[in-house]
Structures are given as C-alpha cells and as structure tokens.
C-alpha cells in the first residue's frame, strides 16, 4: 500500500490497519474458505462413521458363519426350493380350477370392488355417519356415570341421547339419497384396473350381473347404520362357486393334481423338521455369541451408571456386574454338532429327492391347461424341475465344504456389502447389509428417467435454440426452467395421486400386455418414479443442452446453409455433432441430479428391497433407505454405520459423474 493509487481514497475508514476493501476481500475469501472446510468436514464425518462399518460387519458375518447359521441356510435353501415346487403345483391347479369353474367366485369380489368405489364417492356422507356414531359411543361412558347422578344430569343425558340418535338417522337419510344417485354410475370402467378384465368376463357370462350388483349396493347402504350384512345374492353366488369347484375337483385332471400336491407335501415333512433343528441350534449359538458381545456394552453401561445411582441401586448394579458372561463359548464344540448331522442330511435329502423324482412324471402336460395364468406357472414349474438336481447337489456340496473356523476376511466383507443381495435389519434370524438391491433400484430408476427425459430435453433445446422464433423462445424457456422450482415433495404427491394410478391403468390396456412387466401389480413401482424424475431432470438437462447448442459458432451454421444445406440438414449434420459433448455432459449431470433425489422415490418407488427383474417392480433406493431408516437406527449400531456408508457411496457417485461431465466438456468441447 505504499504506492499511491489514483482511484482509491486512502483516507477512508480503517480498523486495525484493515481498510474497507480488505474487509470485503477477507469476507469473500472467508466465505469460500468456510465452504471448502465444510465440504471437507462432511466428507470426513461420513468417512469416519462408515469406516467403522467394516470391522463391525466383518464380525457380524463371522458370527453368521461360526454359529452355523450359514450351514443351516444351505439346508433351508433346499427346503425352500422343494416348497416352491409344491407351491407352483398348487397354483397351477387353482388357476385352472377357478378358470373352469366360471365367474361365480368373482361375483363377491366384484361386489366388494364396486363397494370400494362407492365408499370413495361417499366419503363425506360416510364420515358424517362415523362422526354421528362416534359421538354416541364416546358419550356412552359419561352417560353411564350420569345415569346414576343428579336429576339434571339424567335430563341432560336423555336430551343428548335423543339428539344424537336423531342425528344418526339424518346421516343415514343423506347416505341413502347419495347411494341411489351414484349406484348407476358405478360401472366396470370405473373399477380399479386390476379388476376390469375379470369384470368384463363376468358381464359376458351374466349380462345382468352389474345391474344386480348395483341394486345390491343400494340395499347394502340403505340400511348401513343399523346392520352391514352382505346381500344374499352375493353369499349365494359364492356358495355356488364353491359347489362348482367341488364337482370339478372330482375330474381326472384335478384329482390327479391334488394327488401330486399331497404327495409333494409329504416329501419334505421330515426334511423340514431336520432344518428346524439346525436353525434352532444355530440361533441359540448366535444369541449366546451376541450376548457375550453385548456383555461388554452392559459392563460399560453399569460402570458409567454406578457413580450416578443411589446407594441401594448401586448394590444391585454391582451384583449385575458379577453375573455378566465373561467367557465366550467353544464354537468348535458347537460346530461338531452340525458336522455330525451331515450323514442324516444326506439320508433325508436323498429320500426327498428320490420320492420327488417318482412324483414329477405324474404332473399333467402343459397342453391340458386352458388358462393362460396356469400355463405361465406351468412353464416356471418345468424350469424349476429341470434345475432341481443341480441345485440340491450345489447346496449339499456347500454344506460339505463349510468350515466354522474359516474366518471371513476384509475383502469378502467388502464384497458382501457391495454385492450382497440382502438388506435386512432388525432381523430375528440374521442382519445383512447388502448394497446391490438398493443400488439396483437407484440405478434402474435413473436409467428409466434419463431414457424418458433425454429426447424431451435435447429435442426441446434444439427447437428453442435453432427453430423457434424469438417470441416462442421467450415463452418456452422460462416455463421449462420454472419446472425446476417445483419442490420434489409436491411432485411426489402428484405421483401418489395421479401418475401412479394412470400408469397402472395403462399397464392393463390389452394391446400393451406384450410389454415386459405389464400388467403391473401396484401403483408404486420403478416406472412411476422414473416418469416423475424424468420430469424433474428435464429443466437441468434442457438448460445445459441449450447452452451447448448455443455455443456452436455462427460461422458453422452459415457455412452449412451457404453450401445449400436445408435447416434440418444443418441441425442434424452440423449442430448436433459439434455440440455433442455439451449434450452428453447435460445428460450426465441430469443423471447426477436424479440419482440423488429422495422424496419422490421414497413415496412412489414401493419400498421393496429386492433386485428388480422388470421395470414395473417396486424397489427401494439408496437415498430412500437413508431417509427411512436413519431415525430408527441406534447411533453406533451396524445399521447406522451402513447407512453412512451408503451415503458415502452416493457422494462418490455424484463426484464421479460431475468430474466425468467436466472431462467430457474439456476433452471434446473446445474444438470450435
């Protein structure tokens, strides 16, 4: 500051030698520094909690092995396979049975579904009935007290009773009027999509059914406050459905299937008992192992509590302290019990498989089934039977090579986390923390969203930048950018109320049934989340893509046009290729935006922790599990740390995607 500066007045206010300029400089510099420090602290904090996860999880997996739960699970897998075969046989039988027995069985369902629609249309009337009823029941006790009280109280009670029951009658009148009005409007097209197909079938076989059901609805709700008895017509048709099925069960196809079903159930009964025995043993060992581990915590808790406790309590605590387990059990000895069961297992297994092989050929051929569903399940069954021997042998060899003292190393623990297919906390068998299903959920939802959003965002950007008039540009751009301002929870509402239902309806349209995963089983699924997130990503992607297209030098377009190319040719052959890097970066950043989104996936993705097989499956996501479980996980527990690790993983993904996007721009972007 020794040199005179022509534009700065040196005489202005200064404090401790710091002028206004310096203060502003340090303020901004300080802000930037704080952001960097905060970022570093967040990273360290995430890393600190999640690093501890690995030793915890390693010891958790080691208990799984040492206690013999792993051993028991191999046998359990065999049992499950066997049970699934039996399940599928039952399903094949029942699908075909209900198909052949006609529509009687569906009439009660149809009635209830129509009733559901009616209930939704009469919410306010039914609420009035409920309030009127509640007013009576909530006063009953006080009336009881009053009925033995003073004359005034008794009079008050009588007046209230009369008023309230009058009120109830009024609500019934309103309800009756409403049901008479709306009943004719409850048609097949207003039912939930899952039911429409069946409903049309009912109508085809019994054209008057819907009319009769509408009348049944009226009679049901006209007497609603007094009794809620199912109309006779409904009970009758369900009875006649049962009768028809009973007759059908005597026919050769079904009696044969019933026989197979019965014999299959008998094959696994002894094996089931054996597996239960293994499981009980392993569970006991692991409970002991855990209480040995928690003894340390208990000891610490008591030692911390002693100084704060009252004298008598101190005595009690000291006794507790002495009772704690201090020696771990002998795992080798416990494992010997399991090793010794191997011959018994072999014997039971071969009994089960050989009797199953005697039963399998009795299964009817697929051509004997008319019902589509039955045929679909039959195919699944055939595949299971084909792999039967290989699967049983695989599990058996796993059991033979199982060693309780083969400890699980760090790499296996890491693998168990990253590729683990199960995420189960608070389990009564064993807790697992496998990222794969959550990662799968996040990834596939993001891919669906990107696939939907890219054409809209990029197409929109090209149109706005190259084709639209100035007035159009000024209209479209702010609107698209405004979408970004919609809070994600509001979008999630939209998903719950509108989008989910409509996608479900769409999935029941007959000519779309060839699509994989259609019809969907519920509103909450990957596709719903994907559609909403696409909507959310469009503004980000649109703005970035538009910038990239805008950056293509004017000379390129002019050169192309002057060579005689049309405008469309120019767009596809000149502009898109030269702005491609920016567009790719836009897509990548859209990807990063979507994968970190929480609210929408939490509310509409479904919450099923399983690796998705098709785009209409419900899933859980990495962000969703953090939002859902953080509140319930005890600080310091494995689950808590696992959640932090998931957070760190998400953080890493965002980091990689962002740097990838920047690299793309740097490497390919500055050629013009």
């Amino acid at each position: 500051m020794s040199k005179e500066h022509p534009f700065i007045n040196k005489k202005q206010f200064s404090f401790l030698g710091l002028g206004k300029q310096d203060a502003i400089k340090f303020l901004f510099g300080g802000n930037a520094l704080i952001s960097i420090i905060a970022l570093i602290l967040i990273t360290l904090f995430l890393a600190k909690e999640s690093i501890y996860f690995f030793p915890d999880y390693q010891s958790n997996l080691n208990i799984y092995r040492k206690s013999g739960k792993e051993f028991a699970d191999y046998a359990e897998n065999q049992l499950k396979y066997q049970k699934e075969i039996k399940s599928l046989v039952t399903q094949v039988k029942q699908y075909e049975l209900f198909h052949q027995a006609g529509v009687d069985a569906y009439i009660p369902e149809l009635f209830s579904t129509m009733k559901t629609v009616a209930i939704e249309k009469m919410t306010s009337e039914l609420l009035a009935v409920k309030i009127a009823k509640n007013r009576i029941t909530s006063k009953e006790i006080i009336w009881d007290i009053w009925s033995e009280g003073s004359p005034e109280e008794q009079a008050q009670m009588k007046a209230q009773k009369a008023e309230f029951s009058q009120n109830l009658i009024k609500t019934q009148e309103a309800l009756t009027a409403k049901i008479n009005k709306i009943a004719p409007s409850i048609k097949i097209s207003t039912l939930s999509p899952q039911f429409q197909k069946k409903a049309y079938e009912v109508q085809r076989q019994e054209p008057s059914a819907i009319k009769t059901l509408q009348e049944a609805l009226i009679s049901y709700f006209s007497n609603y406050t007094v009794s809620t008895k199912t109309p006779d017509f409904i009970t009758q048709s369900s009875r006649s459905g049962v009768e028809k099925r009973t007759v059908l069960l005597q026919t050769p196809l079904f009696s044969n299937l019933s026989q197979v079903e019965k014999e299959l159930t008998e094959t696994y009964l002894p094996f089931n008992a054996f597996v239960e025995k293994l499981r009980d043993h392993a569970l006991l060992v692991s409970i002991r192992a855990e209480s040995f581990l928690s003894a340390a915590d208990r000891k610490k808790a008591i030692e911390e509590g002693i100084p704060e406790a009252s004298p008598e309590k101190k005595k009690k605590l000291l006794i507790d302290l002495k009772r704690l387990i201090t020696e771990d059990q002998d795992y080798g000895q416990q494992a010997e019990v399991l090793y010794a069961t191997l011959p018994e297992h072999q014997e039971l297994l071969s009994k089960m498989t050989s009797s199953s092989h005697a039963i399998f050929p009795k299964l009817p051929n697929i051509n004997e089934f008319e019902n589509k569903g039955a045929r679909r399940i039959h195919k699944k069954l055939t595949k299971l039977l084909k792999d039967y021997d290989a699967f049983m042998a695989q599990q058996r060899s796993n059991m033979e090579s199982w060693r309780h003292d083969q400890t699980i190393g760090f790499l296996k623990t890491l693998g168990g986390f990253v590729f683990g297919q199960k995420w189960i906390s608070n389990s009564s068998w064993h807790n697992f923390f496998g990222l794969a299903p959550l990662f799968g959920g996040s990834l596939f939802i993001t891919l669906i969203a990107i696939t939907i959003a890219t054409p809209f965002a990029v197409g929109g950007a090209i149109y706005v930048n190259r084709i639209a008039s100035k007035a159009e540009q000024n209209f479209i751009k702010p609107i698209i950018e405004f979408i970004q301002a919609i809070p994600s929870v509001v979008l999630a509402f939209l998903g719950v109320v509108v989008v989910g239902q409509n996608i479900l309806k769409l999935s029941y349209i007959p000519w779309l049934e060839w699509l994989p995963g259609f019809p969907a089983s519920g509103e909450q699924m990957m596709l719903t989340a994907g559609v909403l997130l696409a909507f959310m990503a469009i503004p980000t992607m649109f703005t970035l893509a538009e910038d990239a297209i805008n950056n293509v030098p004017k000379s390129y377009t002019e050169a192309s046009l002057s060579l005689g190319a049309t405008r469309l040719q120019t767009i596809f052959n000149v502009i898109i290729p030269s702005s491609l890097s920016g567009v790719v970066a836009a897509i990548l950043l859209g990807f990063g935006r979507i994968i970190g989104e929480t609210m929408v996936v939490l509310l509409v993705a479904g919450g099923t922790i399983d690796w998705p097989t098709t785009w209409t499956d419900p899933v859980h996501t990495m962000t969703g599990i953090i939002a859902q479980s953080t509140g319930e996980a005890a600080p310091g527990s494995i689950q808590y740390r696992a959640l932090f690790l998931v957070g760190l993983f998400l953080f890493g993904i965002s980091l990689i995607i962002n740097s990838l996007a920047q690299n793309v721009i740097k490497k390919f972007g500055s050629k013009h």
Partner: protein
Amino acid sequence: MKALKSLAIGSALIATSTAADKITIKGSDTLGAKMVPQLSEVYTALGNHVKFEIAAEGSSSAFKALLDGTAQIGMSSRSVKESEINKFTAKGKSLKETVAGVDMIAVIVNGANGISNLTKEQIEGIFTGSISDWSEVGGTPGKISIYTRNETSGTYKTFQKLAMSKKDYSSNAQKQAGNTQIVDQVFKNSKGIGYVGLAYANKEGIKSVTIDGVAGTPENKASYSLSRNLYYYTLGEPTGSTKKFLDWATSSKIASKIVTKVGFIPVK
C-alpha cells in the same frame, strides 16, 4: 457454591411442580392413536386438572423420549429391549413397566377377498414369502401383496414372534408407517394382506380373517394366537399426577370400559 446448588435444586423443584400439570406421553402408534387420547379426554372430563400431550411415533420413540426426559410416560406395544435398558443404566436411571392392556393383532385382507380363515402355517407362509399366490390358500388366483409395519414398530417385532416363528419377512413385503396406512393399502389393493392392532380392523371395505377358526375378539383372548401385552413405561416409580393418572388408567372401572371400547382388553 452451596447457595448456587440449593438454587438449582429449588428451580428443579419448581420445574417439576409446574410440569406435573402437564403429562407428556409418547410412543406406540397402537396405544397412542385411540386408547390413550380417549383415556386422557375422559380423565380431564372427570375433573382432573391435567393437560395431556400425546405423540405416537412407534414404540422405540417411547424409550428415546423417556431417556431425553421429553416424556413422563412412554407407551410401548412390546417390552423393552436389553440394548435400551443399557442406555438407562448408563445414566443411572431405571424403567418401571406397567401393563396397559392386552391387544390382539388382526390379520386383514381386502373385503373383496374370498378368504375368511387362514391357518397359522398359512400366515407364516404368506409373510415369509413361501406362499406367494392367493390360490395356494384357496382364494381366487392372484399374486399376494404383503404390507407390514416398519422396523420401529413394536407390532412388527411382535408379529414376527407370534405369527412367523421368528422368521424374516419376505423381501417382497412393503413397509408402511402406521396401522392406518396398512388399512388404506389393503383397502385399495384387492390382493393385499396386512396386520394391525384389533382397534383398526373394523374399517368398511376390509375384513380380518379368523386364525385357525378363532376370531380375534375379546371373548377369545385365551384361544386367539396373536395377542400381546401393551405397556406404559415410566422413569422409576411414577409420582404425583403421573402416578394418579396411571393408577386410574389401569385400575378404574371407567378406564377399563374405555379400553374395551377401543378394541383392547383391560388388565382388570
């Protein structure tokens, strides 16, 4: 120093005596949605000058709130876990358990479902995932959608213990935040199944199934397989207005009538 200490004790005393007029009750959704609010309403109507604050966010939150000192009474639909006791011991505190009543867990299905009875094995099969289609239990064909509570819930754990031989829930199970949400989902989905406290099971459009032929009604409390105790927890022996309320809620005739009315079975 001594003066300061006595001042602190004095202010603590004032704090407890003013807090005594307000009882904060936190914990289980099963207890906190109907039973405790109605109990407290009648209790104040009977001329007791007490203000109640009730929050129902799952049994686990009862112990958190008691430990923080943000509640005087914790409601829980399961008994306290060992890891939770440890936290209290570490702070030199202890818990006192009072049985609030007996609850039955109802297994509910959509009103459109033809099934009205399930055996215990079938229920275990459905919730563990080994039975995946309604046709396997005699219903009209269709894939079963399972709705369960989330893990903070005491009902989640109790159901696992009572109905599923402590096996894990199927990976297809969809977790819901409370009893009402389960009722809503089962109401909407004709292929749904879930479980709720008996008090929630009487909604129009859903129905509770009998288990091995036994309906979950108070008369059947001995033979119905899915019943459990509900608890109040306090820090040490309850005192003052808290004690008065708890005594009334667990032993008076009127209180037991209310408990019966909301669908639970009173202790006395």
